């Protein structure tokens, strides 16, 4: 479970995240949508314990992140949007290292690592340096690393970027199965189709505030007029004011 209470983040005078209140219960896959710069990544990075909130609290699996950061983080797996990892480690070494950060090692971890790499077709690359991996392969490795220690909560920023269709499908299945087992996932995405088909509930964030939250039906009702998630998103965020493309291209 993830609980955010009055979560706020200021960068100087700019408020990136403004008093967010949100509860994502166990067994739910929660989607976080919003235009660029809306505060999605900042929120997720605060939940991951990388950024410190200006005010407000975060609870992961019932543990206060500020009061008991190590215990709370032990429950968490984080997948960032920019896959920078140690270039000079091999894929297998990287997974072993991440498991070690959570105090786990041994045959079970090795087995789990091999299974995860096989799932994403990385088996043959397990003993090669990460520097020779493509963007998508790095993304797959990071996703594998988030599962290696069996976290209760997964926070993921733009999971589908760089993935091939097969890996994207595998990831969707993995996420669904994971929440079916009672765990929690919170993810941000720009791929509305993914959010629509995958997420149990969705929040739309804009200028650091939650504009709407609920199931796709709830959002449709709020946007008055129905339609697909794209229509709802554009209506709620007021992003329809597109310029005349001709003028832009001729400028």
């Amino acid at each position, binding site marked *: 479970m993830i609980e955010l209470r009055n979560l706020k983040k200021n960068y100087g005078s700019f408020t990136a995240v403004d008093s967010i209140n949100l509860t994502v219960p166990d067994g739910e896959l929660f989607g976080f949508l919003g235009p660029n710069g809306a505060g999605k990544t900042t929120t997720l*990075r605060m939940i*991951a*314990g*990388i*950024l*410190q909130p200006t005010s407000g609290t975060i609870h992961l699996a019932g543990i206060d992140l500020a009061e008991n*950061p*190590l*215990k*709370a*983080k*032990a429950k*968490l797996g*984080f997948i*960032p949007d920019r896959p*920078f*990892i*140690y*270039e*000079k*480690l*091999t894929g297998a*070494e990287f997974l*072993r*290292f*991440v*498991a*070690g*950060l*959570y*105090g*786990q*090692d041994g045959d079970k971890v090795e087995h789990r690592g091999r299974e995860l790499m096989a799932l994403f077709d990385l088996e043959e690359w397990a*003993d*090669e*340096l990460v*520097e*020779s991996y493509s963007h998508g392969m790095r993304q797959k490795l990071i996703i594998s*690393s988030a599962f290696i220690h069996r976290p209760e909560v997964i926070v993921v920023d733009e999971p589908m970027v760089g993935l091939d269709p097969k890996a994207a499908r595998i990831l969707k299945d993995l996420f669904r199965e994971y929440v079916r087992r009672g765990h929690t996932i919170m993810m941000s995405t720009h791929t509305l189709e993914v959010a629509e088909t995958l997420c149990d509930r969705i929040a739309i964030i804009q200028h650091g505030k939650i504009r709407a939250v609920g199931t796709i039906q709830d959002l449709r009702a709020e946007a008055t007029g129905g339609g697909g998630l794209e229509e709802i998103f554009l209506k709620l965020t007021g992003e329809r004011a597109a310029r005349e*493309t*001709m003028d832009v*291209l001729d400028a």
Partner: protein
Amino acid sequence: MSSMHSALAVLTPRMTRAVKPFESPSLMHLLSPKWLSAKARPLGKTENKAGRLVLFFIVGAVFWVFVFGLLYRLLKYFRGIPEIGALLAAKLLGLMFISLFGILILSYVVTALSSFFLAKDLDLLVAAPVDWLRLYGAKLLETTGHSSWMVVLVATPVLTAYGIVYGGGLLYPIVAIAAVVPFLFIPAAIGSSITLLLVNIFPARRTRDILSVIAVLTAAGLVLIFRLIRPERLARPEGFRSLVEFISLLRGPTSPWLPSEWAAQGIMTWLRDEPELLSFYLLWSTAAALVVFGALLHRWLYTRGFTKAQESGERFVRNGRLGKAVGRLLTPWGVMRRELVLKEMRLFFRDTTQWSQLILLTVLVVVYVFNIKFLPLRGEGITFFLANVIPFVNLVLAGFVLASIAARFIFPGISLEGRTLWLLRSSPLEMEELLWSKFWVGTIPLLGLAVGLVFATDVLLQVSGFMMTVSIFTITMMTFAIAGLALGFGALFPKFNTENAAQIPTSFGGLVLMMASVVLIGLVIVLEARPVYQYVGARLLHADPDPWAMLFGFGGAVLLSLAATFIPIRIAVRRMGELER
């Protein structure tokens, strides 16, 4: 139909517009991102820029005044010696230029590898319609700037002292610049050409092989140069058969074919009021010829080399025996600590930009041991007292060597973690664990080196048992303290976004670390000097040394070293906890 037309108009450029003939972007344009980035963040993107800028200028001014003062006094003294004085001054300048020449070539080879072949902007530049000559020019200037700014920093007060003592006049700065500028470009053209040739032979990412060849060659070359020059002879004129022989040695050029000699000659002849254009002609024509040669070589080999550089040299790696042994050894300390230490070791040995700096370490140690080996310690006029003091000075020098190694290897540790901090910060890892693992991984090899170095040089110096014990004890404490400082300053002045690990030690934080290390070494030596002085004196007079002075001196040194080990790490832990990345 009309909508179809407008769609086509968007997708295809309008042919009716006048098409300008294409021009390759200018050299200035290619360099502008570097210039703009430098302007945007002179000291890194951190808070309190003004304060750091002021500190930077103060540190720079103190350094310049120190070097200038030292040279000024020395040159004044030389000036007082008739006949030989000017020759000694010229020799000293020649020695400085030849050392700088060696350092520059080595540094250009390493920098050229990253700026010509591995830098992240290359994908963009090589893919863009930039002609080969401008790319060469831009990258050569970038390499020269990166590698030579430190040399310029050191050379400025030295050359100023020469100009003032020998009354160079108003035109002297122009003369000095006219000598130094081609002197910087000659090794740049040579160094980048060497790199180009090496990359064409080996893939750039397999620089391990290339750089170990360079390391061996450089060390051998340095030893050779030192043996050829035999600087210790200059310090002892009584060793020559006659004064005439000594003067003739001083008069003769050290190496008439080296640009360092031309630069020194050009400046000295001006200062002696016998200006000679030949040196400048040689410098400028050689620089121009080498740059043209380098450009032609670049045109011929760069595309091939760049393609090879994209190949990943090593893909498969096996876990070495050392890794397995360390893994087993560390298992009782917990999984997390073991994995952190193993990761540090793997990253270090697999990252050529990191370990290639071992070359500099080799050079430092070779030069250092050779200097000790040829110190004139056994001749006439060398007292028992002096023979005991010199090993103490040895400690100071070993301390400097240690500080520069710590700046190269321990200081960048935190900065290199920048892009992966998301992983460490989001995991249940205490920052303290991370810092201590970095501390031990850096300190243990450093300690081995430090103790080995001091032991070897003390054996060469044939010191007493007491001095040996004091030396080993002191260098052990200093190693811990310097490693602590390096880690602390590394966390206080991180450079998270750097492309090249080799640039981290030469950053502002690296400079501050070196200053702090010098202060620490100075304080430890001052604290220990008194008891050692008393002990040596008492031994000479067959008396007992004062136990209180010993306790105060050595106790103070221990306390200081402990403080310098633990306080910076505590500060670093706090700072890391506050970092938001």
